[in-house]
């Protein structure tokens, strides 16, 4: 029997944990460091790539993703060395997608040529907002003018360029968002990630929110309005949502992220990186130490005591497939869900959700409707088997 991960493909995630400054909304594993010994980090990444390749020999690699942190702070030579090692370790797909997350500043745009030469063919730029006041409130170091210039540079070097925007920001009205999004869509992009601002615990915004000092956030109904405006405008611009927060022209979807949402296998390299790897027929969750220097030292000493590799129960795998898969506009395969977890979804729950127009069936496919995607957490809670 074919292993289930093949339905989703195989990718590699490389985590660069450093930023120039920590953004107040960000709960990712990112750190601000005075000096970074890039050659030391390069050696560690290469060593991890070799270790991972030994576990997954001969797999065709569909995607590489440099995330962070701010990977556009990486020396292009380091990226180059990593890509060379990857190509030496695995056969790569003809359409290998190599994405790098970049800050849209002039300094980083200067490195774009080098990244392209290393093999990066897609960048995802953290625009976040298209006005300078809001960029400052979001703790971003770039300006709108710089972002536009960086975008032009990126277009010159990469086949595909995407950028991120955050909405439901403080004091943002639905009309202001409509105008801002229209501007973004008029730039001729083929991929856009539009995220509703989420206040996460443990962030500066989270602290301010708890103290009642984060004022002017749109209420739930207004945020919902903005979500539906996003769907409407992107659809009209030919970038329908292919996932909750991701919009693309047909064929311009992020191959890498689709591996997650199709529940394929992915290796996680770098501090705090997670992976899903099917080893000897068992899907494992892998996780590395969060703290950068700890990860670095452990890799250097080949001491992997804090590197976790835990088998995921079949029912948990099915839950993950459901949770990830329903984020896509194309939904999940019911047969695949049943074969992963050993039990099908409950018919009565499916019928209830269909009656509410929250999900739709097309033979084996089960997908959330646009209305259903907006309340996807509730839909998933219903569909999840009782624990």
């Amino acid at each position, binding site marked *: 029997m074919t292993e289930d991960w093949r339905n989703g493909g195989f990718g590699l995630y490389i985590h660069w944990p450093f930023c120039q400054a920590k953004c107040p909304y960000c709960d990712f594993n990112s750190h601000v460091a005075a000096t970074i010994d890039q050659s030391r980090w390069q050696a560690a990444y290469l060593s991890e790539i070799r270790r991972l390749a030994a576990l997954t020999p001969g797999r065709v690699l569909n995607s590489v993703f440099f995330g962070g942190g701010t990977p556009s702070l990486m020396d292009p030579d380091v990226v180059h060395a990593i890509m060379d090692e990857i190509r030496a370790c695995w056969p790569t797909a003809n359409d290998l997608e190599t994405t790098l997350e970049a800050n849209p500043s002039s300094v980083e745009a200067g490195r774009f040529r080098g990244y392209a030469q290393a093999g990066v063919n897609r960048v995802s730029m953290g625009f976040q907002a298209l006005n300078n006041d809001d960029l400052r409130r979001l703790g971003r170091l770039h300006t709108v003018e710089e972002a536009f210039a960086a975008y032009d540079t990126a277009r010159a070097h990469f086949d595909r360029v995407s950028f991120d925007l955050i909405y439901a920001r403080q004091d943002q009205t639905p009309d202001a968002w409509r105008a801002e999004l229209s501007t973004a869509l008029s730039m001729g992009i083929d991929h856009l990630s539009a995220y509703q601002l989420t206040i996460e615990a443990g962030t500066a915004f989270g602290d301010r929110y708890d103290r009642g000092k984060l004022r002017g956030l749109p209420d739930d109904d207004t*945020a919902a309005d903005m979500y539906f405006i996003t769907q409407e405008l992107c659809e009209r611009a030919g970038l329908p949502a292919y996932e909750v927060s991701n919009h693309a022209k047909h064929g311009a979807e992020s191959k890498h992220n689709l591996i997650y949402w199709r529940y394929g296998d992915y290796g996680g390299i770098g501090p705090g990186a997670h992976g899903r790897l099917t080893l000897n027929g068992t899907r494992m969750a892998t996780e590395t130490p969060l703290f950068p220097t700890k990860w670095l030292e452990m890799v250097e000493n080949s001491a992997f005591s804090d590197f976790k590799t835990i088998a995921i129960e079949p029912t948990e795998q099915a839950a993950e497939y459901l949770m990830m898969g329903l984020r896509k506009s194309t939904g999940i395969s019911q047969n695949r869900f049943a074969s992963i977890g050993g039990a099908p979804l409950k018919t009565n729950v499916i019928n209830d959700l269909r009656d509410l127009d929250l999900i739709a069936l097309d033979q084996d496919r089960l997908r959330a409707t646009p209305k259903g995607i907006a309340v996807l957490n509730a839909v998933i809670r219903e569909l999840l088997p009782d624990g």
Partner: protein
Amino acid sequence: MTDLKNIRNFSIVAHIDHGKSTLADRLIQMTGTVAERDMKAQLLDAMDIERERGITIKANTVRIDYPAKDGQHYVLNLIDTPGHVDFGYEVSRSMQAVEGSLLVVDATQGVEAQTLANVYQAIEADHEIVPVLNKIDLPAADVDRVAEQIEDVIGIDATDAVQISAKTGIGIPDVLEAIVTRLPAPEGDTEAPLKAMLVDSYYDAYLGVVVIIRVIDGKIRKGDRIRMMKTGGTYPIDRLGVFRPKMENIDELGPGEIGFITASIKQVRDTRVGDTITHERKPCAEPLPGFKPSQPVVFCGLFPVDSAEFENLRDAIEKLALNDASFSYEMETSAALGFGFRCGFLGLLHLEVIRDRLEREYDIDLITTAPSVIYHLHMKDGTTVELHNPADMPDLTYVDHIEEPRIKATILVPDEYLGDVLKLCQDRRGVQLDLTYAGNRAMVVYDLPLNEVVFDFYDRLKSVTKGYASFDYQMIGYQQDFLVKMQILVNDEPVDALSVMVHRDRAEARGRAMCEKLKELIPRHMFKIPIQAAIGGRVIARETLAAMRKDVTAKCYGGDATRKRKLLEKQKAGKKKMRQFGKVEIPQSAFINALKMDD
């Protein structure tokens, strides 16, 4: 055994916070009954709830030895009576057990509704009453005005009122002298067969049931075999004693004396307040008059928030019932709330006390359903049915008419709030019986349906009068009225635990208020939820809870899979603990909060 002429038995009548417990403490302290090092505030209030709320739930007694100015030694027995109308019958029995009362009135506040209710009980029991004006040391004290008020409102002579400050001790020796000189000694016949009144009882984990008695005639000794004349139980006495206020064994109690017995009695239920205790072999001819079994008047459902706690709730209720014969319970199942108990209480305070004790002493989170009174359903076939739970209301075609209990409510209120109080009483279908003034305070007496009072009347009264009104009530009987059962339907399904009996004229307003409240209390679901109030099949009010519009995680990538899955699974497990009704989950708090009206 003490000589009758050297015994004085008394109680203290007062409104909450007028200083009853402080005065009792002071009398105990000044006579050296308790060593200084053992003194603590409110010696007689044993339960935390009694101490916190400043109310007495169980009767307590204390025996004080007092060498009076006439050179003789006296035994003073204080019975601290329950101070709330919920315990009216228990109060009346305690009052029957003594010959006199100290009427304590706060000289800064004046007479309050509860003072009146209790002093009338004392008058009914033919007590000699000694007025005591407390807190005379405070600048706000107005001794003359309050004395005048006692004469006007209560109608007893206050010229010789004893002026004291229980807090500082001023006037306490005068109170002791007044007890000896102004209260009568008890009467009784030492040689007659034993006749003693069961004043109250409580459960003690070590001794079993402890019974407080007042001997009327005859003598009682350790080892005697006694009979409870109403319940018929016979027991050998294990221990005989008095409270000082700690238990102290003695050999014998004679006429006029107050003390306790223990007799291997297992349940408080076997000891009925007001029963007559006599000797098994040589019984008295007649039991004491006035015995009444206690009757619950207010009912509500108690359900555990977590249905897995049902057995713990059963244990807790059984243990509480051991010590409280007036509290009744039976198992109940509700479609909405699962297994629980339908409980009967003497009144609202009693309900609150029991609920507090269950939550506090037994650590169980409870859902309390709407309090209900007992309706008399006169059926077309001529029978009469008592309805304790609106959910049990039979089909109306079988019912000829319905009667509901009514109360006489006495409210004392500063006149600036009188308008609000009258409006509240009118809104609650009250009929004004009396309106008089005593100084700048109005005393209003209303005939009110108990069902309009059981829920939040007292809260509303406190809120419209900023806490300045005092309130008391007594049951006055049943009266026919146009009552209907109002159902609440959530998502087209009736929720039995939210059914209430209402007057037909009040149904629309009540229904609208409940639907509006529920709309706030029920969280949004994936679908819109109609919330309706209906009488029979007819909908009289409707609200719609809009569907949830957005609940989705903005970002979910490879690194989020484990954490987000665990979160959703946890939320799913949490949902199982909510009360599912049809497809709708109703939070616990909704069941009681839906009934609160902001009129």
